[in-house]
């Protein structure tokens, strides 16, 4: 479980450039599925990496699933030398993605992002069609049910069919 409000507000306050993707983005678009973590794609500029690393430091990020005690240093150098990080923090599980399959990095995803008003902030979230596209591109069997729901949401946005409304 992740403290979504605090994480999103603090990232925004720090001026971190990011786009919400994954299960939370699906919730934004109306998904009824429950996700326990937050996935974001972050801009790989030196300044953004510095802000991101500094914002997360108080949350004691650690590699999710790694054995306790494994040496892990969290700072801007670590982020710069890596790309995608699946982290556990004191605020919950957080996935930091430099790139995603079928979508690329922050700059490539930006035209497909929507700005949503959340907790009094303007937060960028991946648009529904692109979210479907990247989930399809990821090709993970566990995503198939989520893709079906997202496509159903896209169909609902176009207007429910007579067959569906008769259910």
């Amino acid at each position: 479980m992740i403290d979504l409000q605090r994480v999103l507000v603090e990232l925004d306050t720090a001026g971190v450039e990011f786009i919400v993707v994954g299960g939370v983005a699906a919730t934004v678009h109306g998904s009824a599925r429950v996700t326990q973590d937050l996935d974001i794609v972050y801009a790989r500029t030196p300044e953004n990496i510095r802000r991101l690393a500094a914002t997360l430091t108080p949350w004691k990020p650690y590699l999710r699933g790694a054995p306790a005690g494994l040496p892990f240093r969290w700072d801007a150098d670590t982020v710069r030398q890596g790309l995608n990080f699946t982290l556990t923090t004191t605020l919950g599980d957080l996935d930091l993605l430099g790139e995603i399959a079928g979508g690329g990095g922050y700059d490539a995803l930006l035209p497909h992002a929507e700005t949503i008003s959340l907790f009094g902030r303007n937060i960028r979230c991946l648009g529904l069609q692109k979210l479907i596209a990247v989930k399809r591109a990821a090709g993970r069997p566990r995503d198939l049910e989520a893709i079906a729901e997202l496509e159903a949401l896209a169909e609902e946005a176009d207007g429910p069919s007579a067959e569906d409304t008769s259910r």
Partner: protein
Amino acid sequence: LVAPPGTLVAASGGRSPRPGTLLAPTSAVPRARFEAVCASGSPPPDELKPAADPVVEAYKRHIDRTLLRENLKRSVEERIENLMRLQRFAQDVKHAGLSRR
């Protein structure tokens, strides 16, 4: 054709493409147009449709659309707050189960 991993499949003339893959443009779809659509990320025109994945279609038949419609009536903030409530509930249930072991 080298194309970004993707979402669009050219009309395949009866073949069964692996869902989510890109095929080479057909004679009906000039290469330049095919590549432009792939690069734009815009909704595909009729001749460039996403491949229907039979597994996804099967799942889709069992989705409770009334639940989705109720969600769509909520604001984005209400959807996120509802998710946070469900996360807390799932956590409580998990802890309750663990404490009984």
